[in-house]
C-alpha cells in the first residue's frame, strides 16, 4: 500500500482536506485570541504575574460585577424556563403554530438594541404601558421601569423568553405522543403523565435550554447600558470588560475580565450539565418494532 492509500483507508483523502480552511481560520480567529488573552491576563501593567486577578478580586468595583450579573441572569433564566415549559406543552397541540412562532422570532431577530430603544418609549413615564395601567386604575402615578434593575430584567424577559420558548418547543415536539397516550391508557391523569412520562424525557433538553439561555443572559451588554443603571445596579461583568478595553485601553485587564466572565458562566453551565448527567438520556421518539 502506498502512504496515500493507507491514509485513504483511515478516511483521509482529498475530500477530508476541505475541512482544513475552516479549521485554520477558526484556530486563527478563535483559539489564538483566547490563548493570547490568557497570556495577556498574566502580564498586567504592574508587572506581577497575578496582578490583574488580584485587582479584580480586591476591587469591589470589579468583584461585585459577578454578583450583579448572577442576580440578573439566574432569576431571568429560571423564570423564562418556568414560563416556557407549560406554554410549549400547550402549543404543541396547536395546528397553526407558525404565526405564533413568527411573532416570537421578532424580538430575537431585531435584537436587544432595538428592544431597548422601544422600552425607553413604551415603559417610560409617558409611555403606553404606564398610561394603560393608570387608565385601568392599577396605579395612580406613572411607574418608572427603565434605568433600573427592572428595566434590564424586562429586556432579558422580552428577548430571552422567545429564545427559551422556541428551544423548549423543539424538545417538546420531539417526544412521541404515543408515549403519553400509553400513560393515559394505563389510567394516568394529566398531572401524573407530566410527572412520570414527559418530565423525565424533557429534563435533559431543559438542562441544555437552561445553559444556552443562561449564557445569553449572562453576557447581556447593550440593554444593561441603555435601559439599566450601568454605573451601579446593572453594572454587569461585560460592561466592566468593555470599559477596560475601550475606555482604558488596558487590554490585559479587559482580557482578564473576559476570562473571569467565561469561567464564572462556565461554572454555572458545568453545574447544570453535571446535574443533567444524573438523568435518563434515552430515546424520546417511539421505538420501531
Amino acid at each position, binding site marked *: 500500500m502506498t502512504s496515500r492509500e493507507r491514509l485513504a483507508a*483511515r*478516511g*483521509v483523502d*482529498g475530500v477530508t482536506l*476541505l*475541512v482544513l*480552511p*475552516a*479549521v485554520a*481560520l*477558526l*484556530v486563527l*480567529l*478563535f483559539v*489564538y*485570541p483566547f490563548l*493570547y*488573552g490568557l497570556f*495577556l491576563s498574566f502580564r498586567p501593567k504592574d508587572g506581577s504575574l497575578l496582578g490583574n486577578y488580584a485587582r479584580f478580586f480586591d476591587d469591589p468595583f470589579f468583584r461585585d460585577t459577578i454578583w450583579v450579573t448572577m442576580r440578573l441572569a439566574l432569576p431571568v433564566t429560571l423564570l423564562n424556563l418556568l414560563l416556557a415549559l407549560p*406554554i410549549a406543552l*400547550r402549543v404543541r397541540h396547536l395546528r397553526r403554530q407558525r404565526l405564533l*412562532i*413568527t*411573532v416570537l*422570532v421578532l424580538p*430575537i*431577530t*431585531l*435584537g*436587544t*438594541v*432595538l*428592544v*431597548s*430603544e*422601544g*422600552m*425607553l*418609549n*413604551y415603559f417610560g413615564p*409617558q*409611555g*403606553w404601558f404606564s*398610561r394603560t395601567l393608570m387608565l385601568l386604575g392599577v396605579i395612580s402615578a406613572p411607574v418608572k421601569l427603565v434605568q433600573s434593575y427592572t428595566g434590564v430584567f424586562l429586556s432579558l424577559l*422580552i428577548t430571552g423568553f422567545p429564545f427559551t420558548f*422556541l*428551544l423548549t418547543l423543539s424538545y417538546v415536539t420531539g417526544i412521541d405522543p404515543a408515549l403519553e397516550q400509553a400513560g393515559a391508557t394505563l389510567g394516568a391523569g*394529566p398531572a401524573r403523565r407530566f410527572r412520570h412520562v414527559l418530565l423525565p424525557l424533557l429534563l435533559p433538553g431543559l438542562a441544555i435550554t437552561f445553559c*444556552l439561555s443562561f449564557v445569553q443572559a449572562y453576557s447581556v*451588554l*447593550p440593554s444593561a447600558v*441603555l435601559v439599566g443603571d450601568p454605573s451601579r445596579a446593572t453594572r454587569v461583568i461585560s460592561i466592566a470588560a*468593555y470599559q477596560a*478595553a*475601550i475606555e482604558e485601553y488596558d*487590554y490585559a485587564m*479587559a*482580557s482578564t475580565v*473576559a476570562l473571569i466572565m*467565561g469561567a464564572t458562566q462556565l461554572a454555572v453551565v458545568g453545574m447544570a450539565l453535571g446535574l443533567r448527567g444524573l438523568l435518563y438520556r434515552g430515546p424520546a421518539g417511539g421505538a420501531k418494532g
Partner: protein
Amino acid sequence: MRRTLIDRLWSTALWTLVGFFIVNLLALIGTVVVSSFATRWLRSWLPADWTLRWYAAAWNEFQLGDVLLTTFQVVLAVVALSAIFGVPAAYALARRDFPGKRLAMLLLLLPMLVPPVTYGIPLATVLYQTGLGGSMAGVILANLVPSIPFVVLVMIPFIEQIDPRIEAAARVFGAGTGRLFVHVLLPLLAPGVMAALLLVLVRTIAMFELTFLTAGPTSQTLVVALYYAVFASGVRAVQSIDAMAVIYMGVTLVWLLIALRFVNPTQLVGRSKRSG
C-alpha cells in the same frame, strides 16, 4: 375528550399570559414606529400630528447612506466567506470519518456556545494589535467566527441526507470532480446552502457585540450606529432616533420575511434540529 374545570382554567391562564406578552411586544415595536412619524408626542396617547421629516433628519444626522452601505458590504462579505469556508468543511465532516473529527467538531461548536462578548474582547485585542481593529476587514473577520460554525452545523444534516450513491453514479458515468460538483452536488445542495446563508445574513445584520467591539467610526453597521444614537440620546430628537430604528427594523424584517419562506423559524434561534 372531556376537559375538567381545572384544565380549562390552566389553559386560559396560559393563553392570557401568551396574549399579554405578545400585546406588549407589538405595542413596544408600535411605539417606535408611531414616534418616528410624530411631530410632537408628549403627555398624550397619540402624537399631536404626523410628519415624515424625521426620516430625512435621521438620514442626514446619522449618515445613514454610508452606514447602510457599510452594513451591506460587511453582511455580503460575511455571507460569501462563510459559504466558501463553511460548505466544503460541512461536506468533509458529513461524508468522511477521519482521525481528529471530534476535535474539529468541538472547535466548530465552541464559538456557538461561548457568548460573543467573552471571545470578542481577546479577538478585538488581537485585531487592534495587527492593525485590523476598527477597519471593515476586522469587522468581517470577527463576524466570521460565529457564522462559519453556523453554516457547517446547518449544512451537515442536510448533506448527510443526500444519498452518496448519486455521487457514485455520476463517477461511474465518467464525471470528474469538477463536473460532479457543478452538475450533481451544487443543484442538490443549493436549497440547504441558501437556507443557511439567509440565516447567517439575518444574524449578521443583528449581530451587535462583535461588531461593536471591533468597529471603528467608519466601519459601524446599522445596529451599532443605532446603539450609539440611543446611548447619546438627548443630543438629538427622540423621533429622529426612532426613525433610524424603523429603518433598521425595515432592513431586518425584509430579510427575515424572505428567510422565513425557506427556513423553519426555530432555526434562527439555534442549530438546526433534526432534519426531516
